[in-house]
């Protein structure tokens, strides 16, 4: 799927950039006030990294959906369904089913054994320094790809919604978005970031619900009539699978590979895992996931209606003619139904989406660097907590700067590809180690290192030599030609390889610490000795 190939031209006709900017500015002002208020009690490391573990399950569930429903899932999936029909829907199903892995195998056990980062859990019963360094490396890699995807999307959105077409103008807007995000993270820490995500999730889901009801109302609340509308405009093929992935044997295999990365990647995304530390107990972590599953699932049902609605009411020709192509499907639908005001609302929600997701990624990456690398690898666990938080804030500044620069350079790159890449890396480098650590007694340092570094390396190497990077007109480097690996999605190879490496590394090393596993398992299952909420 290439829904996010952003072609930059003038903005959607009939859009009112001043109105769009005003609505977005109102969102920024409201969230900044909330972030300032939330930051009053934020002093300790547990406050900065984990919001004092004081959010309730439902609050955290809403924040998780705000963190997870990125611009790619909102604009990208609606657009993919509008243009490619059923194949776009396949994406949302992978993104949703993946949450069962988090619910059944990861969330509660992780909450009970860790403190702030994924590295806490992976290094629990291993040699601290090498495993934490590896966990931080893969956290930074996943967060970097995800960040790039979001920031690259911001550039395209600017063109689409604000009518800013020059690359310089877009760069300025990307920088402004980045600076606002840094302010959120520095002032509000995890608590502020969480509130931004909660507000954004509420706006996004309400907005999508309103448009969904509106579309369904037009077709007498009859799904079959809506589908007929889409067929009339776009042809009968939009109802059947295979319009996009069924072309050749290779695209079919590529799709299986993508589906694997989607379903196994979610529970390995560090910014999602870190959210489980913001609640007081494992039971609240469970409630968070349950809320997240309902909200995300219902939202993806909305995108089905939004996508076919855009296909039926706006039509694929108008979508393809608009700047941003597939990504403009949802905004165009909003405009067709509710005029410039609804378009302005959806535009502001899209920006808010990018802002909230980027803030979540930045705080995760900064926490991993400060807590895993600085405090545990460099200072060997002897760091002063106040100093550690200071390092985290400085890291957040650096990551924010990298995100701005990377976003400016990646402007116009394919968002869906970058997001799929982040999921593939998470599924290959993180998930096998997480599962082995939680469930396999024999697992040890060498297994963890082999699995993390091996999964990461195989994943990156396959991507560099994939057709997404070179060898054809839509590649990152269209003129170069080194596409030795035939698939754009590496998951089908890199995920099994990482599992095998984790096993092989383990059995080839003599290290084995049954006592430490006993402690980890008892704590994971019972919650004994788990980090408590901070009392203010």
């Amino acid at each position, binding site marked *: 799927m290439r829904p996010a190939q952003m072609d930059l031209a003038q903005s959607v006709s009939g859009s009112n950039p001043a109105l769009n900017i005003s609505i977005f500015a109102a969102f920024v002002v409201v969230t900044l006030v909330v972030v300032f208020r939330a930051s009053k009690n934020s002093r300790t490391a547990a406050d900065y990294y984990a919001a004092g573990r004081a959010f309730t399950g439902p609050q955290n569930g809403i924040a998780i959906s705000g963190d997870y429903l990125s611009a790619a899932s909102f604009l990208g999936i609606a657009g993919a369904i509008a243009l490619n029909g059923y194949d776009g829907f396949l994406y949302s199903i992978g993104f949703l089913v993946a949450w069962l892995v988090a619910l059944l195998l990861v969330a509660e056990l992780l909450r009970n054994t860790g403190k702030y980062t994924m590295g806490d859990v992976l290094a629990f019963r291993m040699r601290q320094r090498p495993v934490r360094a590896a966990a931080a490396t893969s956290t930074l890699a996943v967060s970097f790809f995800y960040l790039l995807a979001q920031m690259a999307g911001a550039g395209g959105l600017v063109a689409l919604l604000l009518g800013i077409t020059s690359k310089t103008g877009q760069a300025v807007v990307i920088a402004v978005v980045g600076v606002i995000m840094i302010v959120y993270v520095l002032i509000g820490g995890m608590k502020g970031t969480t509130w931004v995500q909660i507000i954004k999730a509420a706006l996004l889901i309400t907005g999508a619900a309103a448009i969904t009801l509106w579309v369904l109302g037009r077709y007498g609340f009859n799904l*079959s009539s809506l589908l007929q509308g889409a067929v009339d405009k776009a042809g009968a093929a939009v109802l059947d699978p295979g319009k996009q992935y069924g072309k050749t044997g290779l695209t079919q295999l590529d799709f299986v590979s993508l589906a694997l990365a989607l379903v196994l990647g979610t529970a390995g995304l560090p910014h999602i895992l870190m959210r489980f530390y913001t609640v007081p107990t494992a039971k609240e972590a469970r409630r968070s996931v349950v809320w997240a599953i309902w909200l995300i699932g219902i939202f993806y049902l909305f995108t089905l209606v939004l996508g076919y609605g855009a296909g039926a009411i706006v039509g694929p020709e108008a979508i393809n003619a608009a700047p941003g192509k597939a990504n403009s499907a949802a905004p165009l639908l909003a405009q067709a139904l509710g005029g410039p005001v609804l378009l302005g609302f959806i535009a502001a929600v899209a920006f808010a989406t990018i802002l909230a997701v980027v803030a979540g990624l930045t705080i995760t990456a900064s926490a991993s660097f400060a807590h895993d690398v600085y405090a545990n690898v460099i200072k060997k666990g002897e760091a002063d907590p106040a100093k550690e938080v200071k390092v985290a804030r400085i890291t957040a500044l650096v990551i924010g700067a990298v995100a701005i620069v990377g976003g400016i350079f990646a402007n116009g790159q394919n968002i869906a590809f970058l997001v799929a890449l982040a999921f593939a890396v998470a599924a290959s480098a993180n998930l096998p180690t997480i599962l082995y650590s939680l469930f396999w007694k024999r697992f040890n340092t060498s297994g963890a290192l082999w699995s993390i570094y091996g999964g990461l390396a195989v994943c990156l190497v396959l991507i560099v030599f994939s057709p997404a990077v070179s060898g054809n007109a839509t590649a990152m480097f269209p003129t170069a030609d080194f596409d030795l690996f035939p698939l754009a999605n590496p998951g089908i190879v890199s995920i099994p390889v990482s599992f095998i490496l984790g096993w092989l590394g383990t059995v080839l090393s003599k290290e084995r610490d049954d006592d430490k596993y006993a402690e980890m398992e008892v704590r994971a299952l019972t919650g004994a000795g788990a980090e408590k909420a901070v009392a203010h």
Partner: protein
Amino acid sequence: MSTTEPDTRPPDAPDWAEVQASPDFVELRRRLRRFVFPMTGLFLVWYLVYVLLADYAHGFMSTKVFGNVNVALILGLLQFVSTFAITMLYVRYANKKLDPEAEKIRERIEGGDE
């Protein structure tokens, strides 16, 4: 570098290995694993079957069931239904079978050293 971390536990820390070997804990682990492992296998197989059908069985998936609603759409929506259903089943199971047991063991451990 040695292969294990130096033992930094305070002297009154619980004996984790003993708890791990206790019948209560063995039962808790059995209950957890008896639910989550088969359920994970089930939803992964069901998801893969669906993905493979959507990917390779276009004719079957395109069969109209009623109106414009075809097999593919119904199976896709069933993925949502099964995800919601497994979520609810797990919550009920955890509340009834896992939480009370875990709480009992946790209180015994924390009561001992606090």
